């Protein structure tokens, strides 16, 4: 080992990477069950401060069945979810998911979430896209933020965990199908760290930064996907990238679906509520893929509005008829965003919006308990994934609005319990690992990337081009020729990535290095997404091909599995679990 580099080994029972809703909920569940019984020690790792995770941006709501006496039911929620997913969801997982969600909502209520209330003090719910019953529980339009706060605060209550803010995880160490820990860089000191743990949980969220117009945080670079992919684990259904219909022009900041849930209109250039042509019964409250496509169609057919400042086409989101009082009570953040970034007050002006990247339906291939599966479909010992990073799959090819946060909560609960049971039952020993793997990883980062003096490629230049490529070719509507272009361009970028040179050589807070590593992950994912989309010759949910406009259940009712090969990803397919409803035509 070189002298100038410090390497620490940190011993824990459980290491959790990612502290969005999923990561925090998992940590709490483990500590909550333990209560000092086994004295489990948990490491909570995040590349930014724990409470800064992207989940704080979630706005609209969290679905759960709270009022069976008013006509809601588990069956109905399951049906909505499955129909919304265009029947690509695993139905057994959905069935389990809808049942746990209710308890989660009430539990986090007790931990402090200030849900909006009815007059009698019970939790209020509202409409969301694709629902048959208004079951999106909400706290104004900062739902995710308040949930994060409650979970973060609750986690502080427990003793047996250590926080590792600003630790960037660089690889998952797996030997003989057994999880052995994570390697990470402590951004503050630049030290290399090995988290030796008996169990690991990946909850690193989505990859919105692949695109230019995105609603996701700068930290959402989908590192979890890259980590798993590089560790030889399969990714599932990555070509399904959700575009949220209403992103604020030009940046893509999210205007929550709750705005439409409260009754906002989508209006084109001519002042027409165009949704009547695409989803006559649900109108603006159709699922996201349908509305996104509708907006893009309007724009493509020349009924969009041109914004000369940004050079983008958009449509209007009109909330003027809601009235100031209702907006202030239920959508204050949206009003703030409009005022803050465009100087537009939604009380008396419509907002310019267009689809923005929002969610990755796909993710790390896991089973119904959140255990990460390997290439042959059996669980990796000691490794779990939860939240947006994992793909069970509950959301199939299109997630319903308000089903993301409860996925995180429910799977946080399930995974936390599963991890605890595993440790309680099997009492695994602390893994030991040959030093060589660690030295190799250390050398890759500090020697080959940070230390390299040759080459002249610029990280940010490549990132820019990648974003442009994805934005141009792998967007809401896709065609074979576009996707081919994307694949070629990404290949070229990957080649150039090998010659990057960092200009920041320091150890403390070397964001240059972090971005370079992230870019590596992003290029891999972009390739998986574009190649997967090219192969899937049908239109399903969020994946809409202009050259194959119809759903093709005969050939494509199956999940895509992508594995890292020597020359880019290798694809295979596994069947969808259909236990309740057979696929039918999806009309709204």
């Amino acid at each position, binding site marked *: 080992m070189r002298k100038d580099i410090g390497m620490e080994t940190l011993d824990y029972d459980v290491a959790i990477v990612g502290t969005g809703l999923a990561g925090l909920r998992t940590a709490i569940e483990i500590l909550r069950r333990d209560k000092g019984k086994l004295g489990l020690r948990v490491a909570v790792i995040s590349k930014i401060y724990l409470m800064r995770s992207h989940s704080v941006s979630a706005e609209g709501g969290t679905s759960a069945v709270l009022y069976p006496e008013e006509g809601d039911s588990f069956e109905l929620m399951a049906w909505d979810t499955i129909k919304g997913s265009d029947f690509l969801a695993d139905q057994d997982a959905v069935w389990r998911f809808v049942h746990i969600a209710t308890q989660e909502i009430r539990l986090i209520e007790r931990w402090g979430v200030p849900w909006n209330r009815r007059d009698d003090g019970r939790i209020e719910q509202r409409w969301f896209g694709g629902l048959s019953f208004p079951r999106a529980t909400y706290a*104004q339009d900062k739902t995710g933020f308040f949930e994060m706060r409650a979970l973060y605060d609750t986690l502080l209550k427990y003793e047996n965990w250590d926080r590792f803010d600003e630790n960037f995880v660089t690889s998952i160490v797996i030997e003989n199908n057994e999880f052995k820990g994570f390697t990470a860089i402590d951004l503050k000191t630049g030290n290399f760290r090995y988290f030796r743990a008996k169990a690991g949980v990946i909850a690193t969220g989505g990859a919105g930064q692949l695109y230019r117009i995105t609603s996701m945080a700068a930290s959402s670079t989908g590192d979890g996907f890259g980590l798993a992919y590089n560790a030889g684990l399969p990714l599932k259904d990555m070509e399904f990238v959700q575009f949220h219909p209403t992103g604020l022009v030009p940046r893509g900041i999210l205007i929550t679906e709750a705005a439409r849930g409260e009754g906002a209109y989508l209006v084109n250039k001519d002042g027409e509520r165009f949704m009547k042509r695409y989803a006559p019964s649900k109108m603006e409250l159709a699922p996201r893929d349908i509305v996104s496509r509708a907006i893009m169609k309007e724009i493509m057919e020349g009924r969009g509005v041109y914004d000369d400042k940004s050079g983008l086409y958009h449509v209007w989101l009109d909330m003027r008829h809601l009235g100031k009082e209702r907006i*202030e*009570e239920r959508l*204050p953040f949206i*009003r*703030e965003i409009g*005022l*803050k970034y465009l100087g537009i007050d939604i009380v008396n002006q419509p907002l310019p919006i267009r689809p923005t990247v929002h969610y990755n339906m796909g993710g790390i291939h896991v089973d119904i308990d959140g255990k990460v599966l390997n290439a042959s479909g059996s669980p990796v010992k000691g490794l779990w994934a939860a939240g947006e990073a994992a793909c069970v799959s509950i959301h199939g090819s299109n997630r319903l609005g308000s089903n993301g946060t409860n996925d995180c909560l429910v799977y946080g609960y399930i995974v936390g319990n599963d991890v605890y049971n595993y440790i309680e039952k099997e009492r695994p020993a602390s893994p030991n690992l040959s030093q060589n793997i660690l030295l190799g990883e250390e050398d890759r980062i500090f020697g080959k990337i940070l230390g390299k003096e040759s080459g002249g490629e610029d990280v940010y230049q490549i990132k820019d081009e990648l974003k442009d490529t994805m934005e141009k070719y792998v967007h809401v509507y896709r065609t074979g020729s576009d996707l081919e272009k994307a694949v070629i361009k990404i290949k070229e970028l990957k080649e150039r990535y090998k010659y990057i040179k960092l200009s920041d050589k320091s150890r403390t807070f070397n964001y240059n290095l972090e971005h370079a590593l992230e870019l590596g992950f992003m290029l891999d994912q972009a390739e998986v997404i574009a190649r997967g989309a090219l192969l899937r010759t049908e239109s399903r949910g969020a994946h809409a091909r202009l050259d194959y406009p119809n759903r093709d259940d005969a050939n494509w009712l199956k999940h895509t599995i992508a594995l890292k090969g020597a020359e880019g990803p290798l694809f295979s397919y596994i069947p969808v679990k259909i236990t309740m409803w057979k696929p039918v035509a999806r009309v709204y």
Partner: protein
Amino acid sequence: MKMDREKEEKRYKSGLLRSLWPYNFNVERYTYTLHRITGVILILYLIAHVFEIYHLALGPAAWQQTMALLGSLGIWEKIGLWIIAGSALYHGANGLRLILNEAFGILLGKPVLPEYPYTPTSLSRNQKIAIYVIVLIVEALWIWAGIYLLWGLGII
């Protein structure tokens, strides 16, 4: 340019300066600085004052001596007393406002749903009015005291 940079450097490091330098911030932070400075001035003066009055107990001669000693300060005695009078006026008036704020929760406003652009109710119009009233009254009394002390015009 170089001067400027050094000044910046100083402001950056010193906790006491940073604490008492309210430039760029809200009125309340100015009142905080003043309250603190006047409080310290007053207590330092009080210590001296107690010993000053102690000479009263030693008889007229001792008292005259003390007065003479103070008198030898010339105009500075007056200026000093004027500052102390001002301090007492300001500290008392602002202290009263602080008591209303801190101990009785008055002038703060109820908890609300914040509306963008955020204007905190605790620093709202009522608070500002209270401060300006205090400043006005103190200012007026202080000028009066100045006329009285510095020019010896006792009769109204």
